[in-house]
Protein backbone atom coordinates (compact mmCIF):
# COMPACT_ATOMS: atom_id res chain seq x y z
CA UNK A 1 0.00 0.00 0.00
CA UNK A 2 1.29 3.45 -0.92
CA UNK A 3 0.35 6.15 1.57
CA UNK A 4 1.04 9.83 1.01
CA UNK A 5 1.12 12.23 3.96
CA UNK A 6 0.79 15.98 3.40
CA UNK A 7 2.99 17.77 5.90
CA UNK A 8 3.37 21.49 6.40
CA UNK A 9 5.94 23.46 8.33
CA UNK A 10 4.43 26.24 10.47
CA UNK A 11 5.76 28.80 12.99
CA UNK A 12 6.17 27.52 16.55
CA UNK A 13 3.05 27.78 18.62
CA UNK A 14 4.70 29.91 21.26
CA UNK A 15 6.13 32.30 18.68
CA UNK A 16 5.68 36.00 19.23
CA UNK A 17 4.32 37.26 15.94
CA UNK A 18 5.17 40.60 14.42
CA UNK A 19 3.59 42.03 11.30
CA UNK A 20 5.97 42.26 8.36
CA UNK A 21 6.93 45.66 6.94
CA UNK A 22 4.54 45.46 4.00
CA UNK A 23 1.70 44.62 6.39
CA UNK A 24 0.75 41.51 4.43
CA UNK A 25 2.27 38.70 6.44
CA UNK A 26 4.28 38.11 9.61
CA UNK A 27 8.00 38.70 9.96
CA UNK A 28 9.47 35.25 9.41
CA UNK A 29 13.06 36.16 10.18
CA UNK A 30 12.70 35.89 13.93
CA UNK A 31 10.56 32.77 14.04
CA UNK A 32 11.39 29.15 14.63
CA UNK A 33 9.34 26.50 12.88
CA UNK A 34 7.85 23.11 13.58
CA UNK A 35 5.57 20.55 12.00
CA UNK A 36 1.89 21.42 11.87
CA UNK A 37 0.25 19.68 14.81
CA UNK A 38 -2.33 17.51 13.06
CA UNK A 39 0.16 16.58 10.33
CA UNK A 40 2.28 14.87 12.99
CA UNK A 41 -0.73 12.75 13.83
CA UNK A 42 -1.38 12.08 10.13
CA UNK A 43 2.17 10.78 9.80
CA UNK A 44 1.78 8.56 12.88
CA UNK A 45 -1.42 7.07 11.49
CA UNK A 46 0.21 6.36 8.14
CA UNK A 47 3.13 4.61 9.86
CA UNK A 48 0.70 2.46 11.85
CA UNK A 49 -1.19 1.55 8.69
CA UNK A 50 2.04 0.62 6.97
CA UNK A 51 3.00 -1.59 9.90
CA UNK A 52 -0.28 -3.47 9.53
CA UNK A 53 -0.69 -3.55 5.76
CA UNK A 54 2.84 -3.16 4.41
CA UNK A 55 3.87 -0.76 1.69
CA UNK A 56 5.47 2.65 1.88
CA UNK A 57 4.86 6.05 3.42
CA UNK A 58 5.75 9.09 1.33
CA UNK A 59 5.82 12.64 2.68
CA UNK A 60 4.71 15.51 0.44
CA UNK A 61 5.57 19.02 1.53
CA UNK A 62 5.30 22.41 -0.13
CA UNK A 63 7.53 25.05 1.38
CA UNK A 64 10.92 26.77 1.35
CA UNK A 65 14.20 24.95 2.01
CA UNK A 66 13.79 25.32 5.78
CA UNK A 67 10.83 22.91 5.55
CA UNK A 68 13.42 20.15 5.07
CA UNK A 69 13.60 19.87 8.86
CA UNK A 70 9.99 18.66 8.94
CA UNK A 71 10.71 16.18 6.14
CA UNK A 72 13.86 14.84 7.77
CA UNK A 73 12.09 14.39 11.07
CA UNK A 74 9.31 12.44 9.33
CA UNK A 75 11.88 10.22 7.61
CA UNK A 76 13.56 9.62 10.96
CA UNK A 77 10.24 8.52 12.45
CA UNK A 78 9.80 5.97 9.70
CA UNK A 79 8.54 7.54 6.48
CA UNK A 80 10.25 5.96 3.46
CA UNK A 81 10.82 8.90 1.16
CA UNK A 82 9.66 12.42 0.44
CA UNK A 83 8.70 14.86 -2.27
CA UNK A 84 9.60 18.43 -1.43
CA UNK A 85 7.97 21.03 -3.64
CA UNK A 86 10.39 23.86 -3.07
CA UNK A 87 8.93 27.37 -3.14
CA UNK A 88 9.55 30.51 -1.13
CA UNK A 89 6.45 32.41 -2.06
CA UNK A 90 3.57 30.15 -1.09
CA UNK A 91 3.24 31.25 2.56
CA UNK A 92 0.23 33.39 1.72
CA UNK A 93 -1.08 31.32 -1.16
CA UNK A 94 -4.74 30.47 -0.93
CA UNK A 95 -6.01 26.94 -0.31
CA UNK A 96 -6.81 26.18 -3.94
CA UNK A 97 -3.33 27.06 -5.16
CA UNK A 98 -1.67 25.05 -2.39
CA UNK A 99 -3.93 22.06 -3.03
CA UNK A 100 -3.31 22.27 -6.77
CA UNK A 101 0.47 22.16 -6.29
CA UNK A 102 0.26 19.24 -3.86
CA UNK A 103 -2.19 17.33 -6.05
CA UNK A 104 0.05 17.68 -9.10
CA UNK A 105 3.08 16.61 -7.07
CA UNK A 106 1.50 13.27 -6.17
CA UNK A 107 -0.85 12.65 -9.08
CA UNK A 108 1.49 10.41 -11.06
CA UNK A 109 2.23 8.27 -8.00
CA UNK A 110 -1.27 6.85 -7.73
CA UNK A 111 -1.44 6.57 -3.95
CA UNK A 112 -3.79 4.12 -2.22
CA UNK A 113 -4.34 6.56 0.62
CA UNK A 114 -3.56 10.22 1.17
CA UNK A 115 -3.50 11.55 4.71
CA UNK A 116 -3.51 15.25 5.58
CA UNK A 117 -3.88 17.20 8.78
CA UNK A 118 -7.33 18.67 9.34
CA UNK A 119 -6.08 22.23 9.57
CA UNK A 120 -2.89 24.24 9.42
CA UNK A 121 -1.97 26.18 12.56
CA UNK A 122 -0.90 29.29 10.61
CA UNK A 123 -3.33 29.81 7.72
CA UNK A 124 -6.03 27.64 9.21
CA UNK A 125 -7.93 27.22 5.95
CA UNK A 126 -9.15 23.79 6.98
CA UNK A 127 -9.62 22.74 3.37
CA UNK A 128 -6.40 21.88 1.56
CA UNK A 129 -6.89 18.12 2.00
CA UNK A 130 -10.45 18.17 0.72
CA UNK A 131 -9.48 20.16 -2.37
CA UNK A 132 -6.59 17.78 -3.08
CA UNK A 133 -9.11 14.92 -2.92
CA UNK A 134 -11.39 16.66 -5.40
CA UNK A 135 -8.52 17.42 -7.78
CA UNK A 136 -7.36 13.81 -7.66
CA UNK A 137 -10.89 12.45 -7.95
CA UNK A 138 -10.71 10.69 -4.57
CA UNK A 139 -13.46 10.27 -1.99
CA UNK A 140 -12.57 11.85 1.33
CA UNK A 141 -13.46 12.01 5.01
CA UNK A 142 -12.52 14.88 7.32
CA UNK A 143 -11.75 15.17 11.04
CA UNK A 144 -10.91 11.49 11.29
CA UNK A 145 -10.20 10.24 14.81
CA UNK A 146 -9.94 6.48 14.17
CA UNK A 147 -9.02 4.36 11.17
CA UNK A 148 -10.01 0.70 10.90
CA UNK A 149 -8.40 -0.96 7.90
CA UNK A 150 -8.15 -4.44 9.34
CA UNK A 151 -10.37 -5.95 6.66
CA UNK A 152 -10.54 -5.17 2.94
CA UNK A 153 -12.83 -2.24 3.65
CA UNK A 154 -11.62 1.10 4.95
CA UNK A 155 -13.72 2.29 7.87
CA UNK A 156 -13.08 5.65 9.52
CA UNK A 157 -14.50 7.33 12.59
CA UNK A 158 -15.27 11.00 12.07
CA UNK A 159 -15.59 13.52 14.85
CA UNK A 160 -18.77 15.58 14.72
CA UNK A 161 -19.44 18.55 16.99
CA UNK A 162 -20.04 18.39 20.76
CA UNK A 163 -18.95 14.85 21.48
CA UNK A 164 -20.71 13.09 18.60
CA UNK A 165 -19.03 10.64 16.23
CA UNK A 166 -19.87 8.72 13.10
CA UNK A 167 -18.30 5.80 11.25
CA UNK A 168 -18.04 5.85 7.47
CA UNK A 169 -17.13 3.03 5.13
CA UNK A 170 -15.04 4.43 2.30
CA UNK A 171 -14.17 3.37 -1.20
CA UNK A 172 -10.43 3.42 -1.82
CA UNK A 173 -8.17 5.05 -2.84
CA UNK A 174 -9.25 7.83 -0.50
CA UNK A 175 -8.05 10.94 1.28
CA UNK A 176 -8.49 11.42 5.02
CA UNK A 177 -7.89 14.54 7.08
CA UNK A 178 -6.64 13.51 10.50
CA UNK A 179 -7.63 15.07 13.82
CA UNK A 180 -5.04 15.59 16.55
CA UNK A 181 -5.10 12.96 19.25
CA UNK A 182 -5.90 10.02 16.97
CA UNK A 183 -3.00 8.14 18.58
CA UNK A 184 0.15 8.82 20.57
CA UNK A 185 3.00 10.01 18.39
CA UNK A 186 6.25 8.04 18.43
CA UNK A 187 9.63 9.67 18.86
CA UNK A 188 12.39 9.32 16.33
CA UNK A 189 14.99 6.79 17.46
CA UNK A 190 18.72 7.22 16.93
CA UNK A 191 18.55 4.33 14.48
CA UNK A 192 15.74 6.10 12.66
CA UNK A 193 17.73 9.30 12.45
CA UNK A 194 20.71 7.43 10.99
CA UNK A 195 18.54 5.53 8.51
CA UNK A 196 16.86 8.76 7.39
CA UNK A 197 20.13 10.06 5.99
CA UNK A 198 19.93 7.50 3.19
CA UNK A 199 16.31 8.12 2.30
CA UNK A 200 15.29 9.93 -0.87
CA UNK A 201 14.04 13.51 -0.76
CA UNK A 202 13.03 14.45 -4.28
CA UNK A 203 12.79 18.16 -4.96
CA UNK A 204 10.13 19.39 -7.36
CA UNK A 205 8.93 22.65 -8.81
CA UNK A 206 5.40 23.86 -8.07
CA UNK A 207 3.06 23.12 -10.99
CA UNK A 208 1.67 26.64 -10.89
CA UNK A 209 3.05 30.00 -9.78
CA UNK A 210 2.03 31.38 -6.39
CA UNK A 211 -1.07 33.47 -6.81
CA UNK A 212 -2.00 31.85 -10.11
CA UNK A 213 -5.62 30.75 -10.26
CA UNK A 214 -6.27 32.05 -6.78
CA UNK A 215 -9.19 34.23 -5.94
CA UNK A 216 -8.41 35.49 -2.49
CA UNK A 217 -5.76 38.07 -1.73
CA UNK A 218 -4.54 39.13 1.69
CA UNK A 219 -4.62 42.93 1.92
CA UNK A 220 -3.51 43.39 5.47
CA UNK A 221 -2.50 41.36 8.52
CA UNK A 222 -2.84 42.83 12.01
CA UNK A 223 -3.38 42.03 15.67
CA UNK A 224 -7.07 41.39 16.34
CA UNK A 225 -9.00 44.29 17.82
CA UNK A 226 -9.90 43.57 21.43
CA UNK A 227 -13.60 43.34 22.07
CA UNK A 228 -13.72 43.01 25.79
CA UNK A 229 -12.23 45.26 28.44
CA UNK A 230 -10.06 42.84 30.33
CA UNK A 231 -8.88 44.08 33.73
CA UNK A 232 -5.22 43.22 33.85
CA UNK A 233 -3.97 42.56 37.35
CA UNK A 234 -0.54 42.72 38.93
CA UNK A 235 1.16 44.75 36.24
CA UNK A 236 3.65 42.04 35.47
CA UNK A 237 4.17 41.07 39.12
CA UNK A 238 2.84 37.55 39.62
CA UNK A 239 2.47 37.80 43.42
CA UNK A 240 0.67 41.11 43.26
CA UNK A 241 -1.57 39.83 40.48
CA UNK A 242 -2.45 36.75 42.50
CA UNK A 243 -3.35 38.83 45.55
CA UNK A 244 -5.52 41.20 43.52
CA UNK A 245 -7.21 38.29 41.81
CA UNK A 246 -8.01 36.58 45.12
CA UNK A 247 -9.70 39.81 46.25
CA UNK A 248 -11.72 40.01 43.03
CA UNK A 249 -12.78 36.39 43.34
CA UNK A 250 -14.05 37.07 46.84
CA UNK A 251 -15.64 40.50 46.43
CA UNK A 252 -16.82 40.50 42.83
CA UNK A 253 -17.13 36.93 41.57
CA UNK A 254 -18.06 35.81 45.13
CA UNK A 255 -16.66 32.32 44.80
CA UNK A 256 -14.65 32.42 48.02
Amino acid at each position, binding site marked *: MKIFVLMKQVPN*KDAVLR*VRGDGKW*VEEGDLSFEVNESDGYALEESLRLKEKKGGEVVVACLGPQRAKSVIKDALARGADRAIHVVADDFAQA*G*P*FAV*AKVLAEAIRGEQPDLVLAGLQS*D*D*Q*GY*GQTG*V*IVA*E*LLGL*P*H*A*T*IVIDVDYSSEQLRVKR*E*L*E*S*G*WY*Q*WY*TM*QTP*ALLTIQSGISQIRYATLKGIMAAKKKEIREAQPAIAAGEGE*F*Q*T*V*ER*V*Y*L*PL*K*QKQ*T*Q*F*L*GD*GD*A*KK*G*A*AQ*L*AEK*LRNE*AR*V*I
Partner: protein
Amino acid sequence: MSNGILVFVEHRQGVINKVSFEAVAAAQQLGASLGQEVTAVVLGADAALANEVTGFKLAGVVSAENPKLADYTPDAYADAFEKVVRAREPQYVIFPHTYLVRDFAPKLAARFGKGLVSDCVRMKAEGGAVTFTRRLFQGKMDADVVASGGGAVFATFQSGAYRGDQAERGGAAAAVESVAVEVGEVRMQPEAPFQEVKAAVDLTKTDVIIAIGRGIKSQENIALAQKLAELLGGDIAASRPICDAGWLPIDRQIGSSGQTVAPKLYIALGISGAIQHLVGMKNAGTIVAVNKDAEAPIFDIADYGIVGDLFEVVPALTEEIQKLKG
Protein backbone atom coordinates in the same frame (compact mmCIF):
# COMPACT_ATOMS: atom_id res chain seq x y z
CA MET B 1 -23.15 39.93 -12.81
CA SER B 2 -25.40 40.18 -9.86
CA ASN B 3 -27.42 37.11 -9.23
CA GLY B 4 -27.78 37.44 -5.53
CA ILE B 5 -26.53 35.61 -2.50
CA LEU B 6 -27.10 32.01 -1.49
CA VAL B 7 -26.94 30.95 2.14
CA PHE B 8 -26.63 27.33 3.22
CA VAL B 9 -28.94 26.11 5.96
CA GLU B 10 -27.58 23.01 7.65
CA HIS B 11 -29.49 20.29 9.40
CA ARG B 12 -28.73 16.98 11.00
CA GLN B 13 -31.18 14.27 11.93
CA GLY B 14 -34.10 16.46 11.00
CA VAL B 15 -33.07 19.43 13.14
CA ILE B 16 -31.77 22.71 11.75
CA ASN B 17 -28.38 23.62 13.14
CA LYS B 18 -28.84 27.00 14.84
CA VAL B 19 -25.54 28.41 13.58
CA SER B 20 -27.23 28.42 10.17
CA PHE B 21 -29.24 31.39 11.42
CA GLU B 22 -25.98 33.23 12.04
CA ALA B 23 -25.09 32.60 8.40
CA VAL B 24 -28.53 33.89 7.39
CA ALA B 25 -27.87 37.08 9.39
CA ALA B 26 -24.46 37.47 7.69
CA ALA B 27 -25.95 36.91 4.25
CA GLN B 28 -28.76 39.38 4.93
CA GLN B 29 -26.28 42.01 6.00
CA LEU B 30 -24.20 41.44 2.89
CA GLY B 31 -27.35 41.57 0.79
CA ALA B 32 -28.40 44.87 2.36
CA SER B 33 -24.98 46.45 1.67
CA LEU B 34 -24.84 45.22 -1.90
CA GLY B 35 -28.50 45.61 -2.72
CA GLN B 36 -28.83 41.92 -3.50
CA GLU B 37 -31.40 39.30 -2.68
CA VAL B 38 -30.70 36.42 -0.34
CA THR B 39 -31.93 32.91 -1.06
CA ALA B 40 -31.58 30.05 1.40
CA VAL B 41 -30.49 26.59 0.22
CA VAL B 42 -31.60 23.46 2.04
CA LEU B 43 -30.45 20.02 0.86
CA GLY B 44 -32.51 16.97 1.70
CA ALA B 45 -34.62 14.08 0.55
CA ASP B 46 -37.75 16.25 0.66
CA ALA B 47 -38.90 19.81 1.41
CA ALA B 48 -39.81 19.19 5.08
CA LEU B 49 -37.00 21.29 6.54
CA ALA B 50 -37.10 23.98 3.89
CA ASN B 51 -40.48 24.94 5.28
CA GLU B 52 -38.87 25.80 8.59
CA VAL B 53 -36.83 28.69 7.23
CA THR B 54 -39.54 30.47 5.28
CA GLY B 55 -40.12 32.85 8.18
CA PHE B 56 -36.87 34.68 7.49
CA LYS B 57 -36.69 37.69 5.25
CA LEU B 58 -35.54 35.91 2.11
CA ALA B 59 -36.17 36.12 -1.61
CA GLY B 60 -36.91 32.42 -1.48
CA VAL B 61 -35.83 29.02 -0.26
CA VAL B 62 -34.36 26.47 -2.67
CA SER B 63 -35.01 22.95 -1.55
CA ALA B 64 -32.65 20.74 -3.55
CA GLU B 65 -33.95 17.21 -3.27
CA ASN B 66 -32.72 13.72 -3.92
CA PRO B 67 -33.21 10.48 -1.96
CA LYS B 68 -29.39 10.28 -1.67
CA LEU B 69 -29.45 13.46 0.43
CA ALA B 70 -31.35 11.79 3.27
CA ASP B 71 -28.07 11.06 5.07
CA TYR B 72 -25.24 13.55 4.81
CA THR B 73 -22.25 12.60 2.65
CA PRO B 74 -19.76 15.01 1.08
CA ASP B 75 -20.20 13.43 -2.36
CA ALA B 76 -23.97 13.88 -2.44
CA TYR B 77 -23.91 17.35 -0.89
CA ALA B 78 -21.23 18.66 -3.26
CA ASP B 79 -23.08 17.29 -6.29
CA ALA B 80 -26.43 18.74 -5.22
CA PHE B 81 -25.08 22.13 -4.23
CA GLU B 82 -23.05 22.37 -7.42
CA LYS B 83 -26.28 22.01 -9.40
CA VAL B 84 -27.86 24.85 -7.44
CA VAL B 85 -24.86 27.14 -7.92
CA ARG B 86 -24.68 26.42 -11.66
CA ALA B 87 -28.39 27.08 -12.08
CA ARG B 88 -28.48 30.35 -10.14
CA GLU B 89 -24.98 31.76 -10.70
CA PRO B 90 -24.87 33.63 -7.40
CA GLN B 91 -22.26 36.22 -6.59
CA TYR B 92 -21.76 35.00 -3.02
CA VAL B 93 -22.41 31.72 -1.27
CA ILE B 94 -22.39 31.99 2.53
CA PHE B 95 -21.98 29.10 4.98
CA PRO B 96 -21.62 28.67 8.73
CA HIS B 97 -18.14 27.26 9.45
CA THR B 98 -19.34 23.94 10.87
CA TYR B 99 -17.71 20.51 10.71
CA LEU B 100 -20.25 19.50 8.06
CA VAL B 101 -19.49 22.55 5.93
CA ARG B 102 -15.74 21.98 6.33
CA ASP B 103 -16.37 18.48 5.00
CA PHE B 104 -18.09 19.31 1.71
CA ALA B 105 -17.82 23.04 0.91
CA PRO B 106 -14.10 22.99 -0.11
CA LYS B 107 -15.00 20.22 -2.56
CA LEU B 108 -17.85 22.33 -3.92
CA ALA B 109 -15.68 25.45 -4.27
CA ALA B 110 -12.95 23.41 -5.96
CA ARG B 111 -15.39 22.52 -8.72
CA PHE B 112 -15.45 26.23 -9.50
CA GLY B 113 -11.68 26.42 -9.37
CA LYS B 114 -11.63 28.09 -6.00
CA GLY B 115 -11.08 27.70 -2.31
CA LEU B 116 -13.32 28.99 0.43
CA VAL B 117 -12.71 32.27 2.19
CA SER B 118 -12.99 30.26 5.37
CA ASP B 119 -13.74 30.93 9.02
CA CYS B 120 -14.43 34.66 8.63
CA VAL B 121 -15.16 36.75 11.70
CA ARG B 122 -16.57 39.77 9.92
CA MET B 123 -16.86 41.50 6.55
CA LYS B 124 -17.18 44.98 5.21
CA ALA B 125 -18.89 45.94 1.98
CA GLU B 126 -17.93 49.27 0.49
CA GLY B 127 -18.87 50.48 -2.96
CA GLY B 128 -19.63 46.96 -4.08
CA ALA B 129 -16.29 45.55 -2.93
CA VAL B 130 -16.31 43.15 0.00
CA THR B 131 -13.45 42.67 2.44
CA PHE B 132 -13.59 39.54 4.57
CA THR B 133 -11.68 39.23 7.82
CA ARG B 134 -10.27 35.81 8.74
CA ARG B 135 -8.37 34.68 11.80
CA LEU B 136 -4.83 33.40 11.31
CA PHE B 137 -2.47 31.62 13.69
CA GLN B 138 -5.29 30.21 15.81
CA GLY B 139 -6.69 33.63 16.59
CA LYS B 140 -3.41 35.48 17.11
CA MET B 141 -3.71 37.56 13.91
CA ASP B 142 -6.46 38.89 11.69
CA ALA B 143 -6.23 39.12 7.92
CA ASP B 144 -8.34 41.26 5.62
CA VAL B 145 -8.97 39.28 2.48
CA VAL B 146 -10.41 40.45 -0.81
CA ALA B 147 -11.99 37.90 -3.08
CA SER B 148 -11.57 38.63 -6.76
CA GLY B 149 -12.07 37.02 -10.12
CA GLY B 150 -15.26 35.95 -11.79
CA GLY B 151 -17.99 33.71 -10.51
CA ALA B 152 -19.21 32.97 -7.04
CA VAL B 153 -17.27 33.77 -3.88
CA PHE B 154 -17.64 31.02 -1.28
CA ALA B 155 -17.26 32.22 2.32
CA THR B 156 -17.80 30.59 5.70
CA PHE B 157 -18.39 32.41 8.98
CA GLN B 158 -17.08 31.44 12.36
CA SER B 159 -19.59 30.51 15.01
CA GLY B 160 -20.51 33.64 16.97
CA ALA B 161 -19.39 36.08 14.25
CA TYR B 162 -23.01 37.06 13.62
CA ARG B 163 -25.98 36.66 15.89
CA GLY B 164 -28.64 34.21 14.87
CA ASP B 165 -31.33 36.13 16.73
CA GLN B 166 -30.57 39.09 14.51
CA ALA B 167 -31.50 37.24 11.36
CA GLU B 168 -34.38 39.30 10.02
CA ARG B 169 -37.82 37.80 9.85
CA GLY B 170 -39.94 38.64 6.81
CA GLY B 171 -43.61 39.59 6.58
CA ALA B 172 -44.95 37.00 4.18
CA ALA B 173 -43.46 33.51 4.14
CA ALA B 174 -40.66 33.09 1.61
CA ALA B 175 -41.60 30.81 -1.26
CA VAL B 176 -40.07 27.35 -1.33
CA GLU B 177 -38.85 26.17 -4.70
CA SER B 178 -38.45 22.41 -4.75
CA VAL B 179 -35.94 21.19 -7.30
CA ALA B 180 -35.03 17.60 -7.99
CA VAL B 181 -31.26 17.51 -8.36
CA GLU B 182 -29.08 14.83 -9.82
CA VAL B 183 -26.53 13.23 -7.55
CA GLY B 184 -23.77 10.98 -8.87
CA GLU B 185 -22.06 8.06 -7.20
CA VAL B 186 -21.71 8.31 -3.42
CA ARG B 187 -18.42 6.71 -2.44
CA MET B 188 -18.82 6.61 1.33
CA GLN B 189 -21.52 5.04 3.51
CA PRO B 190 -22.25 6.67 6.85
CA GLU B 191 -23.39 4.70 9.88
CA ALA B 192 -25.60 6.22 12.58
CA PRO B 193 -24.00 9.02 14.63
CA PHE B 194 -23.37 8.20 18.27
CA GLN B 195 -21.97 9.62 21.50
CA GLU B 196 -19.33 7.80 23.49
CA VAL B 197 -20.43 6.26 26.76
CA LYS B 198 -21.72 8.84 29.17
CA ALA B 199 -19.01 11.08 30.52
CA ALA B 200 -17.86 10.19 34.02
CA VAL B 201 -17.80 13.84 35.01
CA ASP B 202 -20.51 16.27 34.02
CA LEU B 203 -18.71 19.60 33.89
CA THR B 204 -21.90 21.41 32.95
CA LYS B 205 -23.02 21.15 36.56
CA THR B 206 -19.89 22.61 38.16
CA ASP B 207 -19.73 26.22 39.39
CA VAL B 208 -15.98 26.57 39.23
CA ILE B 209 -13.72 25.20 36.51
CA ILE B 210 -9.95 25.39 36.50
CA ALA B 211 -8.85 24.66 32.96
CA ILE B 212 -5.32 23.91 31.89
CA GLY B 213 -3.69 24.17 28.48
CA ARG B 214 -0.38 23.33 26.90
CA GLY B 215 1.26 25.96 29.12
CA ILE B 216 1.11 23.44 31.99
CA LYS B 217 4.01 21.67 30.21
CA SER B 218 3.83 18.24 31.88
CA GLN B 219 1.37 15.85 33.44
CA GLU B 220 2.94 16.17 36.90
CA ASN B 221 2.24 19.90 36.94
CA ILE B 222 -1.49 19.27 36.77
CA ALA B 223 -1.35 18.80 40.55
CA LEU B 224 -0.88 22.58 40.87
CA ALA B 225 -4.19 23.24 39.18
CA GLN B 226 -5.80 20.38 41.05
CA LYS B 227 -4.94 21.99 44.35
CA LEU B 228 -6.47 25.28 43.29
CA ALA B 229 -9.61 23.47 42.11
CA GLU B 230 -10.00 21.69 45.44
CA LEU B 231 -9.62 24.93 47.33
CA LEU B 232 -12.35 26.57 45.25
CA GLY B 233 -14.58 23.52 45.29
CA GLY B 234 -14.23 23.24 41.55
CA ASP B 235 -13.35 20.76 38.83
CA ILE B 236 -10.40 20.44 36.56
CA ALA B 237 -10.79 20.68 32.78
CA ALA B 238 -8.47 21.13 29.80
CA SER B 239 -7.87 22.21 26.25
CA ARG B 240 -7.58 19.59 23.57
CA PRO B 241 -3.80 19.03 23.47
CA ILE B 242 -3.87 17.97 27.14
CA CYS B 243 -6.43 15.27 26.40
CA ASP B 244 -4.70 14.34 23.12
CA ALA B 245 -1.54 13.68 25.11
CA GLY B 246 -3.51 11.43 27.45
CA TRP B 247 -2.75 13.59 30.51
CA LEU B 248 -6.45 13.92 31.25
CA PRO B 249 -9.37 11.86 29.95
CA ILE B 250 -11.34 13.23 27.01
CA ASP B 251 -14.40 13.94 29.14
CA ARG B 252 -12.42 16.83 30.66
CA GLN B 253 -12.02 18.51 27.27
CA ILE B 254 -13.74 21.85 26.76
CA GLY B 255 -14.53 23.11 23.28
CA SER B 256 -16.16 22.38 19.97
CA SER B 257 -15.30 18.71 20.11
CA GLY B 258 -15.59 18.46 23.89
CA GLN B 259 -18.02 19.80 26.45
CA THR B 260 -19.70 23.21 26.43
CA VAL B 261 -19.84 24.74 29.89
CA ALA B 262 -21.01 27.94 31.55
CA PRO B 263 -19.76 27.85 35.16
CA LYS B 264 -19.78 30.88 37.47
CA LEU B 265 -16.01 31.00 37.29
CA TYR B 266 -13.64 29.70 34.61
CA ILE B 267 -9.92 30.04 35.19
CA ALA B 268 -7.84 29.34 32.09
CA LEU B 269 -4.20 28.51 32.85
CA GLY B 270 -1.79 28.45 29.90
CA ILE B 271 -4.55 28.27 27.29
CA SER B 272 -4.08 30.41 24.18
CA GLY B 273 -7.76 30.81 23.34
CA ALA B 274 -8.28 29.20 19.94
CA ILE B 275 -11.86 29.54 18.73
CA GLN B 276 -12.47 25.79 19.12
CA HIS B 277 -11.76 26.20 22.82
CA LEU B 278 -13.62 29.50 23.26
CA VAL B 279 -16.92 28.17 21.90
CA GLY B 280 -16.97 25.74 24.80
CA MET B 281 -16.56 28.26 27.63
CA LYS B 282 -17.22 31.83 26.49
CA ASN B 283 -20.55 31.96 28.34
CA ALA B 284 -18.97 31.44 31.75
CA GLY B 285 -19.92 34.09 34.33
CA THR B 286 -16.44 35.28 35.20
CA ILE B 287 -13.47 34.36 33.04
CA VAL B 288 -9.93 34.59 34.36
CA ALA B 289 -6.90 33.99 32.16
CA VAL B 290 -3.30 33.46 33.18
CA ASN B 291 -0.92 33.49 30.24
CA LYS B 292 2.64 34.63 29.72
CA ASP B 293 1.77 36.07 26.31
CA ALA B 294 0.00 39.43 26.66
CA GLU B 295 -1.37 39.04 23.13
CA ALA B 296 -2.91 35.61 23.69
CA PRO B 297 -6.47 35.61 22.26
CA ILE B 298 -7.85 34.23 25.53
CA PHE B 299 -7.47 37.72 27.01
CA ASP B 300 -10.00 38.96 24.50
CA ILE B 301 -12.79 37.23 26.37
CA ALA B 302 -11.35 37.35 29.90
CA ASP B 303 -12.78 39.57 32.64
CA TYR B 304 -9.54 39.39 34.58
CA GLY B 305 -6.13 38.67 33.18
CA ILE B 306 -2.73 38.08 34.64
CA VAL B 307 0.15 38.28 32.19
CA GLY B 308 2.73 36.03 33.73
CA ASP B 309 4.18 32.61 34.31
CA LEU B 310 1.50 30.29 35.63
CA PHE B 311 4.11 28.48 37.72
CA GLU B 312 4.52 31.68 39.73
CA VAL B 313 0.92 32.86 39.61
CA VAL B 314 -0.87 29.65 40.58
CA PRO B 315 1.03 28.88 43.81
CA ALA B 316 0.72 32.54 44.84
CA LEU B 317 -2.99 32.53 44.09
CA THR B 318 -3.49 29.31 46.00
CA GLU B 319 -1.74 30.84 48.98
CA GLU B 320 -3.79 34.06 48.83
CA ILE B 321 -7.06 32.17 48.66
CA GLN B 322 -5.99 30.02 51.60
CA LYS B 323 -5.34 33.23 53.54
CA LEU B 324 -8.74 34.67 52.65
CA LYS B 325 -10.47 31.49 53.65
CA GLY B 326 -8.67 31.71 56.99
